[in-house]
Structure formats: C-alpha cells, structure tokens
C-alpha cells in the first residue's frame, strides 16, 4: 500500500505540473488585430432606433420574417435568433425622458456578431466550420463542414451563433458582415441603409481612429459624422453627446472588429464585461501546452508500452 501511494503521488504530481504550466507561459496564444481587418463602428448616441438596419439585413441575407405576439402582420423579433442576424434593442430606466441618459433615460444598442480578434467559436469548432478570414478578419460559417455540435454557441461570450432548433436538418446562423455583398464591392446592408451613420462600416484601423476622435469631442458642440462608410463623402452634422469614456471592443475579450460608443454604460446595454485577455487564448494555451506536436502524448505512449510489458512479464512469472 505504501509504495502504491507514493507512485500514485508521483504520477499525479506530473499531471499537476502539466496543468499548472499554462499561466507561466501566458500570452503566447494571444492574437493581434489583422492590419486589413474590416468592421463596424456602432455609435449608440447617433442611433434613432428606426430599425432600417434590421429590414436591410433581412433583405440582404434572405432571412425569414419573425413574429411575436398574436398579430402576425409584421416582422418584430425580440432577440437574435436563427431568423434574425441583427437587432436594435432599447435600454430604458425610470421615466425614459432623455436619450442616452442612464437615469430616467433610454438608449439603443445594435447587436450582431462582433467578429472577434480571437473568436471563441473559431477556436471551439471541431470541424473548422467557423473560420476567420486571414485578411478581413470576418468570421464566417460553412454548413458543409458543421456537425451541429453547438460548441460555438457554448463558447461565444456574446451568444451570437444561433441554431435552427425546429429544423430536422438544422444549421448554425450568424452575421457574416455581408461577405457576399463585399465580394461585389458593396458594403454591409445595415451600414449601407443606416440613415444617421450610427452604423458605420470601414477598415477597423480607421474606425478606431474615428472612435477616438469622437471620444475627444466636447459634448454639446457640433461635429461632422460620416454616414454608412468611413471613407464616404456623405456627412451629417450632429451635436455631440456625452460619451462614456470607453470604446467597447477595443480590448474587451481580446478585442472585436465591431466597436461601440455609447452615452450609457455598456453593461446597462447588455454587453458582457470581459477581461482583455480572451478566454479563447486561455483555453488554447492549456491545449497547446499539453499537445504541442503531440510530443507529450507520444512520449507517454512509449512509457505506457514499457510499463504494460513489464506488468505482463510479471504476470507470466
């Protein structure tokens, strides 16, 4: 018994070292922004809640209408689903008198895929059905690869991938930044049709600069805001609101290609508060430490063959 315990402890100590190792070599799995990444800057203070972006999204992606309540007359989804890739939601507090105010105010928020810098869904998917474009960084879904395991849904910190629960031959559905329109030289439908420039499409590097410009604006003064696309010559003049001093998605969860500005704190708007280091990087670190080049498993296999042979020899004796 004594020897057995000691041997056991030895074995366990070995695996403990392996499992504890990841924190020591942190950051090695962290991903950086792609230089030509494309994204959207959503400015909650410019959004008037007209939901044109939702209509445009449905039309551009051939998505079915979704009804809520007894009257099945118009499309009125209450949340993202396998039929709705993009949604405008509203935050309300007390007597919602003033827009973009946390107390006794209201504010809009636009939700769809954030196109993460280090997407959990891409890392999680066993069949490579979720991929991140190496140039644009757009996260896309390939139903021909997908096995329907739904690990992408479990992994996504924003709960973006949706599943067709009522379809016997289901697939995952998510915003793909209108890749099919980009291929034709057009821009994502939601930004294209947004009348106020609240949803602004462009290279992420430029969007970050634009977001920083807005962060430095003086509330109450008038400024020019581009509409639809960052490089657009079409501009509108708005009175700047008081922004929360944060660009959501700049670093959150390892960074996202969809960035957000708002006058109301982001947790109130329903966005998750995530650490700057993505959980994807943490999980991949554990995995890569243990399985890099399959060296550890192969060594272990060799050791086990030896031990089994030894035990069998003893049994024969």
């Amino acid at each position, binding site marked *: 018994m004594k020897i057995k315990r000691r041997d056991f402890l030895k074995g366990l100590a070995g695996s403990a070292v392996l499992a504890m190792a990841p924190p020591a070599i942190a950051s090695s799995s962290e991903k950086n922004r792609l230089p030509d990444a494309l994204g959207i800057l959503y400015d909650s203070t410019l959004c008037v809640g007209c939901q044109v972006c939702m209509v445009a999204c449905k039309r551009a992606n051939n998505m079915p209408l979704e009804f809520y309540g007894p009257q099945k007359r118009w499309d009125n989804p209450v949340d993202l689903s396998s039929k709705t890739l993009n949604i405008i939601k509203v935050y309300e507090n007390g007597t919602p008198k003033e827009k973009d105010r946390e107390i006794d105010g209201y504010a809009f928020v636009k939700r769809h895929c954030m196109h993460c810098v280090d997407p959990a869904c891409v890392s999680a998917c066993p069949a490579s059905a979720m991929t991140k474009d190496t140039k644009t960084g757009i996260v896309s879904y390939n139903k021909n690869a997908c096995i329907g395991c739904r690990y992408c849904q479990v992994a996504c910190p924003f709960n973006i991938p949706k599943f067709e629960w009522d379809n016997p031959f289901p697939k995952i559905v998510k915003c793909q930044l209108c890749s099919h329109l980009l291929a034709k030289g057009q821009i994502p439908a939601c930004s294209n049709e947004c009348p106020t420039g609240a949803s602004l499409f462009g290279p992420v590097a430029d969007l970050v600069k634009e977001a920083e410009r807005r962060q430095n604006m003086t509330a109450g003064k008038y400024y020019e805001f581009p509409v639809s696309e960052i490089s657009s010559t079409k501009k509108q003049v708005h009175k700047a609101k008081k922004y929360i001093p944060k660009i959501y998605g700049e670093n959150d969860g390892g960074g996202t290609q969809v960035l957000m500005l708002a006058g109301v704190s982001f947790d109130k708007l329903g966005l998750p508060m995530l650490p700057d280091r993505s959980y994807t990087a943490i999980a991949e670190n554990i995995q890569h430490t243990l399985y890099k080049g399959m060296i550890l498993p192969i060594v272990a296999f060799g050791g086990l063959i030896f031990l089994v042979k*030894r035990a069998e020899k003893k049994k024969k004796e």
Partner: protein
Amino acid sequence: MKTEQPLEGKILTPTFLICCLIFLISLIFMAKRFLYGLGAVSNMSDGYPWGLWIAFDVVIGTALGCGGYAMALLVYVFNKGEYHPLVRPALMTSLFGYSLAGVAVVIDVGRYWQLYNIFLPWYMNPNSVLLEVALCVGAYVAVLWVEFSPTFLTKFGADNAKAFMNKIMFVFIALGILLPTMHQSSLGTVMVVTGSKLSPLWWTRLLPLLFLISCIFLGYAIVVFESSITGSRYPIHDETDLLGKVSGVMAWLIAIYLVIRLADVVIRGHLNLAFRGDLLGNMFLLENILLLIPMAVLFVPANLKNARVMFLCAVSIVLATVLFRFNTYIIGFDPGDGWHYFPSVGEIFISLGIVSMEIMAFLWFIKRLPIYRRL
C-alpha cells in the same frame, strides 16, 4: 486460480423487461427528434445549447465508464497484478459507458449525417478541444472493443485468434490508458473557453486536472459499487479484500483532489460564493461534502474490511462526481439574458432509454460471457 465464467440464468427477468419498456418509449422520442428537429423533444435553447444529453450521457456517461481505465492504471502502471480479477468487469462497464455515449452524440448533434467530418483531415481544427475529445473518445471505443475481444473469443472457442490478440494486446492496453487520460482531462478543458458564462466556483484553468483526478477515483468507486451489487445478487467470488485496497487508494486520491479544488477556489478569491446560501453555493458545498465524508470514512482502516460501508462510500463518491460534472456543464453555466434550462420529458426519456440499453447489455453479458469469477 479460479477463472472467469458466465453466471448463467434467465435473461428475461423483470429488471430486463422494465428496461426494455423504457427503451421502447425512448424510441418514440428519438423518432420525433429525427423527424421534427431537436426543438421538438428538448428544452435546449440558444442560451443552453447543451443539455442533459451532453452533460449526462456523454460527459458523465464516459466518466462512469472510467472503471476500466482506473483499474488498468493500477494493474499496469503501478504494476499491481493482484487486482486483475477486477479488470474484466470494469472493462465491461467502460465498454457500455463509452459506446452509448457515442450513440448519444449521434442523437444530440444537429448535423449527424456529416458527423464523419471530424475524421476528415481537411476539416479537423487542431485548436479545438472538442475535436481532441471526439477523436480520443472515438478511438477509445474501438480500443475497448479490442481489449474486450478475448472474452468473446473465449466464448466462441476461437483459441488461435485469442492467442494472437493476447500477443498484440499490450499496444491496446497502453492506448487504453493514454486515451482516457487525454480526453477525460480535455472534458474539463472544454468548459474553460466559456469564461464568464461559467460560475467562478467551477471556472478554473485547473478544470482539466480536476476532471482527470475525479474520473480516476470515480472509476474505482464504480468498480466497488458494481462488484457489491453483483456480489449481493449472484454467486461470485468474494472480492472484499481487493475492494478494500481499492477503497484505500480512492481515499488518497480524493484527499489530493479536495486540496486542489478548495485551494483553487480560495486562491482565486471566490470562496465567499460557496456560503451565500443560493443554489450554486449549495451545489458547490454538496458536491464537496459528498466527497469529504467518504474520504474520512475510508481513512479508517477497519472500514476497508466492511463491504457495506465501502458500498455506501462508493455511492456517495459517484453522486459527488456526477454532480461536479452537472454543475460544470449545466447548473453553474449561465449565458445571461434570462435564459433557463430544465430537461424536457423527451430528453429525460432518451437518456433513460440509453441507460436501459446499458443495463440490458450488462445483464446479458454477465450471464452469457466469462466476466466474473464464480464461486
């Protein structure tokens, strides 16, 4: 030395027939699932994309099937040949646990008709923890059938084939230890990526280590549990001495596990969550108390000679490890936005159907194949 023999007896016992009935009912729900989609029978949702089937049938099912792995560790890695009589029954439960987890996966995945994609190199994602789990579990099911094949070959008197199998068996025994070490720990890593969606009482980067240690002592608990039950109903050789030794090992493993488990929660500064009196706090306490008590009991040498005490301890340990996995995969998981999940009748029946299949196969195997040492 006594050799393993079939226990004989009637197959169609009341237990067998009840299992048969439950299995038939579950077939109706399975048909519904394949005709109308997952939403038609399950309460899973976009917030809780994994429910009872993944948590119970796959994660817990394979963990309960760790008896074979845990015994192989003792016999081959720690070179304790005296435990050999416990290997074959343990291997059999592993065989069922893992094979039926495979069945559950086919029912659970949405696009089951292209499930084979994970075996195609151009679709494999080497970063995916789930891919590693799937490949290792798949390979281990095959290894288990090979490891178990001498039992069949004995029954059918294929001596040449059996001799050949015994010659190459060492490769499969080694794989049978390597593969569970890999995928049982990875079943913990699977939930690391969920980050803030999982309660800090369970989210830790040590999940793979905790899953690995707990699956090993769970494996021993299952061996004790099963031998006790079979021993009380069938005339088999009394293995109390061996079970006592196994229980002693179990106590030490639990001690190591609990130290890591509690130290981890304390160091991360979340122990206060355990004492808030809410569901998650209580689940955390329950999960660990169910380990603490049997550990204390099994540290008393006299108790290692008492079959009844060891059986009760094994039951407690099984419950604790099952609860730990439920907590990590469902109860401690909160996607936010007000999502809720409780398994539907259909989900429960399909899970029960799979367990029934397992019990029916168990009864047939022990009565018709040389598994246990008879009196």
